[in-house]
Each structure stands twice: as C-alpha cells, then as structure tokens.
C-alpha cells in the first residue's frame, strides 16, 4: 500500500504537504464582521452618512433603511438570507486548506491573521442547501477574507461545487460577494483558477441545470472575468462595483475623472452585461422564481 508521501509524489502539482493551519474541518463563523460594519451598537452608512442601529440594520438584511445602501454581508449571513434555513446547509470541502505555493513573503502570516479575525478558513464557503425546498448547490465569496479574491482554494472549491452539482443534478448559485479579483500572493496559479472555473462552469452547463451568478459589491478583476460572468442568469445587487480593471487604474490610464456611475450595477445593466438588478430583500424570491422555472 502506498504511503502518504507516495501519493503526494504522484500529484506534485496539486497537493503539497506544508500545512498552513493545524486543524481541519468546517468552520462556522459566529457572525460576519464586514469592514463597513464596525463592532459596536452603531454603524455609519457610507451611502447617506446616517448613523444606524446595528440590530435594525441586521434585521433589514444589512441594507440602509434611509438610502438603500447595501452593506457587505459575510458568507454565513448570506446563506441565512437566501436559504430556507442554515441548518439544512451541508458544507462541502471545508477541509481544503491554503498553502503558500510561491513562498510569497508574509502570505502565511496574513492568512493566519485573517482566519483568526474572520473565523473563515478561506474566501469561499460552498455546499448544498434548500431554497423554497429546492435543493441547490451554493457558493458564497466573502469580502472579509482577502477581499474575496480567488486563489487555488477558491478555484478548487468552485470547481468541485460545479462538478458535484452536475453529478447530483442540482442548480448552482454563486454569490460573488465580493470578488476582489486575483489572489496576488498565489501569482500565476491564481490566474489559472480563472481557466479552471470557466471550464467547470461550461462542463456543468452540459448537465442542463442552471447556474445563477449573483454579483455583489465589489465584483472585479479575475472573479468578474471568469465564473462570475458566465451565469445563465446574472443578477446584481444595486450599487455594486462591477468591472474588470479597477477604477483607479482606469482613471490613471485615461487621465481624466471617471463619469459618475461608472462600473456600477446600473452601468453594467445599461451596457447589457447583466440580466437584472435585484434588491437584497428580493434576492431570495427571484432565486426561487428561477428555480421554479427550472423545476423538474
């Protein structure tokens, strides 16, 4: 029988032995801590500068009741918002852990700090749950973890999500909330996840089941330029930043101020890149409607 070491030798590009974290197993964060929402009783709305009571904000799905600004929500809270119940959610591949393939300076430390702070192991949570009782495969990116950027683990978990969904004939919902693009610290391997996820989407498509991509603030760079743009249905929360190149880079390139509303959800809708803008409170009903239209 092969030893562990032999196994790794046959798959050298895929699995390495140096662990970043000591303990495996799915991690359930106690509560989301998005950047915009500081700890404490009150939060300031970046949209209208109002001071909002945290408990009210949370009840309102983290949408400002004054101006409609959509705050970041963490992966687990998002699951709670769209699924029938988080209790029905079964996590997949929670044990897949990040390594430092390039030996990028400071990556391990930053990973450990982020894991500590967010309670997440990586920038995506995937698994299967129920929505209006329809079984559905779900992936949620979490902005709080490396800005929701895609490294090897995010790419791999997404690929497995689509593969397993195809096997089980499940629809897929992926919330790119919010895709910060590439995981710079994994260099070219991060770029390759774009290819891997696009291919996974296409292969999944042959199952005849739908893939709904939900874009939230921000969905940029390598996340936008891969799986997030390939949904059979592409929904976006209002006011989200959506685009390929970062607005600062565009501004620096063209050497003039950006037009107002540039790279927002509304801009993407107007230019034909998405199907609909969906208020957060409408997200669950619209997803349910899509599942109903694809019911078997």
């Amino acid at each position: 029988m092969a030893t562990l070491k032999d196994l790794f030798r046959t798959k050298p590009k895929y699995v390495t032995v140096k662990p970043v974290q000591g303990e495996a197993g799915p991690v359930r964060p106690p509560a989301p801590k998005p950047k915009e929402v500081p700890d404490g009783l009150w939060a300031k709305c970046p949209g209208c500068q109002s001071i909002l009571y945290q408990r009210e904000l949370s009840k309102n799905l983290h949408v400002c009741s004054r101006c409609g600004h959509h705050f970041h929500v963490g992966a687990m809270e998002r699951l709670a918002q769209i699924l029938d119940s988080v209790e029905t959610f079964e996590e997949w591949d929670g044990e897949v852990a990040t390594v430092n393939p390039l030996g990028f300076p400071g990556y391990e430390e930053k990973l450990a700090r982020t894991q500590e702070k967010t309670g997440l192991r990586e920038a995506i949570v995937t698994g299967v749950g129920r929505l209006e009782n329809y079984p559905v495969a779900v992936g949620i990116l979490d902005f709080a973890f490396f800005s929701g950027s895609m490294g090897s683990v995010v790419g791999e978990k997404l690929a497995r999500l689509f593969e397993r969904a195809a096997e089980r004939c499940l629809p897929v919902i992926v919330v790119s909330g919010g895709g910060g693009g590439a995981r710079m610290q994994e260099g070219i391997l991060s770029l390759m996840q774009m290819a891997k996820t696009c291919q996974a989407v296409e292969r999944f498509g042959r199952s005849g089941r739908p893939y709904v991509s939900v874009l939230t603030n921000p969905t940029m760079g390598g996340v936008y330029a891969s799986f997030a743009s390939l949904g059979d249905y592409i929904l976006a929360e209002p006011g989200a930043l959506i685009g390929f190149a970062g607005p600062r880079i565009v501004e620096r390139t063209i050497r003039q101020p950006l037009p107002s509303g540039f790279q927002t959800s509304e801009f993407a809708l107007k230019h034909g890149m998405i199907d609909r803008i969906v208020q957060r409170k409408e997200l669950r009903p619209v997803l349910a409607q899509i599942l109903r239209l694809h019911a078997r």
Partner: protein
Amino acid sequence: MVNGVFEWERPLVELENRIRELQAFTKEKGIDFSQEIATLERKADRLRAEIFSNLTPWQRVQLARHPRRPTTLDYIGMICTDFLELSGDRCVRNDEAMVGGVALLDGIPITVVGPQKGRDTKENIRRNFGLPHPEGYRKALRLMVQAEKFGRPILSLIDVVGAYPGIEAEQRGQGVVIAENIRRMSFLRVPVVCVITGEGGSGGALAIGVGDRVLMMENAWYSVISPEMCAEILWKDTGRAPEAAGVLKLGARDLLELGVIDEIIPEPLGGAHRDREEVARRLKEAVLRHLRELMALDPDELLDRRLKKYRAMGRLQEQTAERLEAIRSGQAEA
C-alpha cells in the same frame, strides 16, 4: 534605458561597438586588427555570459519589453508563408491591437492570433500600444472558432501588458469578453499552442492563452499582475517593481516548475532582439513539434487532456483521510 541599451548591459554594448569599429576600420583602411579583434571578442564573450547568464527576474521583464523585441507580426512574417490577415469582430470594431489570420506553417494551414504592439509611435497609437479592447478579444475568438470549423490548428502568440483599462473597454464588457474567450477557447476541438513571446499580463493574456501546450520564450514574463501594480499594492511604491518581479515568480523557469507552461524556448544571450532570425527558427521548430504531436490526437482525446491539465492547476492541502483515499484510488479528478 538609453537608445535601447539597459544600464546593466552597457559595458558589453560598448565593447561590441568597439569591435564593430575595428572591423569597419580593417575593411576601409586595410590595416589588420584581427588579433586585437579576437582578444576583444573573447572578452565580449566572457562579459556576455557574465551579464546575461544570471539575469534577475526584473532584467528579464526589461528584455521582454525591449523596443526592438520581435512583435507578433514580426514572428508571423518570419515563421509563416501566405499569411492572410483577417479583420473585425463582426460586432463593433476592428481592433488593431489584436491581429490574426490564416497562414501556412511549414505547409500546414493554421490560424494565428496575437496582440500587436506598435513598432514606432505612430503604429503604437493606431494599435493602442498593443492593449486590446473587447473587440480585439472577440476578433481573436472569431478567428479561433473559424479555425475549429475548418479543423485548423491554432497558434496564439502572446505579448500583452494587459487588456486595456479604459472607459469604453469597460462599457463593452472587458470582463465578460475575457471570461467568454477563456470558456470557448477551452473547448475548441482543434490543437491550440500558445506562446508567451514577450509580456503575459494577467487576464488579458489568458483570454488568448488557454491551450493544449503553453510555451514561453526564455525572457518572457507571465503573471497575474504586473510587477509595478504588485509593488504599488504591497509597498505603495511602483519603484519597487524589480523586487515585486522577484516575489511574483513570473519567469519562464518558475512557471515551468509550477506546471503552468510546458516548455521554454531559449533566446540568444541578451534577448530575442539580438538575433531575430535565430529566435524565430527556434520558435517555429518548437511550435511545429508540438502541433504535430497534437494533430495526431483525436478531438475528444485532445479536449480531455486539455481540461485535465487545467483542472490540476493550483496548489492546496487537504487533511481528510477520505479525500486522500479518493485521490489514491483515482476517484478524485487530478
């Protein structure tokens, strides 16, 4: 860089100039300097090896950006015959930052595509400094789909800093077009050989860079982010790009080790621009060798291998016994 000469290669270039002067003198005046020339050439050889054999990642980035480095059309001209350039995305515009067409490579009809930098200021303006808009990527995809229709293999020559980050490019869906290209290219039922000939900048390179084989010139770079932007993010200082080039592992040898590329095409000492014909010859040899291998496969097999290759990309770690068991028994992919 002054007149196409980097500071770090100046001693060599001055020596080379000296040799040329002596040679010219010999020819004009008939005085024999052959011994002196021989001595200087030995010295130049030593210096050349010293300077160019241990290039830093940043020095390679500089070579990849050398203004006299052959461009896509230069390579096509040197390795192909009967090149018929084709235009347009049938949708919005003909983007001259991306070129493509049909040609014969050693008698084999191929479709060739690639971003095209200008070879002077005027051409650079026309070609938007080789930075494609969505139309350019759509044109490349159109030509690749045409290649699939006719069962022609595809050669993608990649030299691009990135997809153009402009207002109109964003309006017309730079992100969407890159995703679409990656998806469609991944499933083309003809052999696809990509060569990073110069710069391989992020999604703008990958959008024409998914292939059965990805080759890379010795001094080319290929990265998820440019060294300058990486330095800006890490240290808020684009001046530290040379350092960033080091940590990003963007050179050919690193990429070969990471399994992202399949072969390195060696360049003459000092970079491709120092012997264009020779580097074109090597490019042609390598491309033909890979194409011939791939053309022997049937399309299903070709696709299967291509997808398996990308499926395995990335590095991570899992701790469950279950998963390890699955990998060992071949139940899990990759």
